[in-house]
């Protein structure tokens, strides 16, 4: 089932949660909505499900305008963050619930429902737990039961809200791989919400990066990591260092020192230079580089993280050096980013950027 979200706005008590979001999701795709809390990702998921209704805009399921359909009519499988399993029902009753409440003429027999529940338990690799109650299951098992329950109604799309949010790290990793396999077996169009970028990048075909109620970028893991389109995405995905600079006559400057980078289309005025802390090369002497004084140095796993104070107003920037680099306090270090991106300040007018060629 293809999904098309067209210019959706959503306000809660006049407070805008989503401003004009548009997104096309292909059939069978596994999509992650990634963003910090308050970015509107869960709101978007609930709008797709029909648990909220948009202030304006439309949502299409294939060719059908589903915007005014209720959650029951949309036939979506929704897995809630805290699973929302019915605690007074057994696992089998939970999974069969969506079939049991169907109108009489569409309802399978009790035996068929029970068989279907057992099949789904096989699929989520929990065979034999039919008669347990949710309180007797571990977190990871509840998560799987919640998914089996959502799959039981043969949904058109599968929606998961922070599916691994409440689990510990080891279980998360296992379930991530497992969800990918389930997705490949069943082929449902799947959308999940997460604030964990590792989860989104590893699991999803495409990642939708959201911030403050708007989509910042939609793309594959490679796209959003290697070719971030906005300062937010550069800062949010992976580690990054950000340095306020000035663009003048096609070059990038800090105070009266040129950094030796070409500003491309970026207009004259204030701008921000982004680069990955680990993706820098040290240079001796300095004709066109960034130079600073070491203000702190920390050993982190296999590398040394160094904070440098750059320029007259001592802007702090972080880089990663080999662990054997001494990086003595107050010593001077000069480096050049191997790949970088320059964004004009949003305040300075149109958004423009330049990057490594």
């Amino acid at each position, binding site marked *: 089932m293809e999904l098309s979200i067209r210019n959706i706005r959503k306000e809660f008590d006049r407070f805008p949660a989503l401003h004009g979001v548009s997104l096309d999701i292909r059939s069978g795709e596994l999509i992650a909505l990634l963003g910090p809390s308050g970015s509107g990702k869960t709101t978007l998921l609930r709008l797709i499900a029909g648990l909220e209704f948009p202030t304006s805009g439309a949502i299409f399921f294939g060719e059908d305008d589903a915007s005014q359909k209720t959650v029951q009519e949309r036939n979506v499988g929704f897995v*809630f963050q805290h699973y*929302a399993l*019915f605690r007074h029902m057994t696992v089998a009753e939970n999974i069969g619930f*969506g079939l049991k409440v169907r109108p009489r003429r569409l309802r399978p027999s009790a035996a068929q429902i029970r068989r279907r529940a057992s099949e789904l338990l096989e699929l989520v690799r929990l065979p034999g737990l039919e008669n347990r109650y949710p309180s007797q299951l571990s977190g990871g098992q509840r998560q799987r039961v919640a998914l089996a329950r959502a799959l039981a109604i043969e949904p058109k799309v599968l929606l998961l809200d922070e599916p691994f949010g409440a689990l510990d790290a080891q279980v998360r990793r296992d379930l991530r791989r497992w969800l990918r396999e389930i997705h490949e077996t069943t082929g449902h169009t799947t959308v999940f919400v997460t604030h964990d970028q590792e989860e989104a990048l590893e699991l999803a075909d495409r990642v939708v990066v959201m911030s403050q109620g708007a989509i910042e970028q939609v793309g594959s893991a490679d796209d959003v990591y290697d070719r971030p389109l906005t300062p937010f995405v550069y800062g949010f995905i992976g580690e990054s260092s950000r340095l306020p600079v000035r663009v003048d006559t096609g070059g990038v400057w800090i105070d009266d020192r040129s950094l030796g980078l070409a500003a491309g289309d970026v207009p004259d005025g204030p701008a921000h230079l982004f680069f990955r802390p680990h993706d820098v090369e040290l240079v001796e002497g300095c004709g066109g580089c960034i130079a600073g004084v070491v203000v702190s140095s920390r050993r982190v796993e296999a590398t040394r993280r160094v904070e440098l104070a750059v320029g007259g107003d001592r802007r702090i920037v972080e880089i990663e050096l080999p662990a054997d680099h001494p990086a003595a306090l107050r010593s001077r270090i000069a480096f050049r980013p191997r790949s970088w991106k320059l964004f004009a300040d949003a305040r300075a007018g149109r958004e423009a950027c330049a990057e490594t060629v």
Partner: protein
Amino acid sequence: MSDPAARIPAKHPPARRLPATRSAAAPSPRISPTTETRAVQYALIAVVVAILSLFLLVPLATVFTQALRSGLGDYLATFRNPEALAAIRLTLLVAAIAVPCNLIFGIAAAWAIAKYRFPGRTLLVSLIDLPFSISPVVAGLVYILLLGSNSLIGGFLLENFGIRIIFAVPGIVLATILVTFPFIARELIPLMEDQGTGDEEAALSLGANGWQTFLFVTLPNVKWALLYGVLLCNARAMGEFGAVAVLSGKLRGQTVTMPLQVELFYNEYASVAAFSLASLLAGLALVTLIVKSWLEWRYADQIAATGRGH
């Protein structure tokens, strides 16, 4: 004049919480910084037992001994007295109307308060508690002013339909409903607020309609609290004295409920009859307590499971 026995359950907090288990006694006098010495523990227990005995157990025992003072024959004779029988019938009728009314009201109010956010919500919560804080006599008097035959509404009903509310059965039912208003809602609200709307959303997303969601998901999630509420509401409905006394008019055999009949007998020095009837009310309270405790014991696991989270 009151009916202390019938009020026992009402004075206890909702009994959803299960007693906390204390770790077993250790040889040292103090087993943790938050545990008092043995002497203090026993002293506290003794104080509680003494107070309970003096104010609850002794009066309760007295009711039964006084009722049986002149033998079982006199005791049973009370229940052949037509006035006593009429009082029992009326009390059962009033409870049979008031409890279902408050069941519906309690579920509706708890649903509205726990699941929606709307202006005036906190005010509504406070209003539900009003019958707990207001004197039943005051409530009864207000009803007389509002619905008495000299009032606008009461006069209109009496003239056009011949319906008398005050000093008649409808007034007694109204007073009872008012006084027992909060019992069920108060039991449900904290539980439903705690449970949130997640389960309902899950049921809807699986295709259930509103009625199925209520029946299969919401109701089972609150069934124990609901049962407690009904038990307490029923005990109070049968035992209510103050508001009913004001509104009943005490027409013998017509508008006299059991607690009122107890008082009438007593004032007429028919103390065996008074205590016999009172023993029925006290017995009702005891049965309520026993049923409640049995339910707690029998379904402790399920109560714990539906009470808090997963």
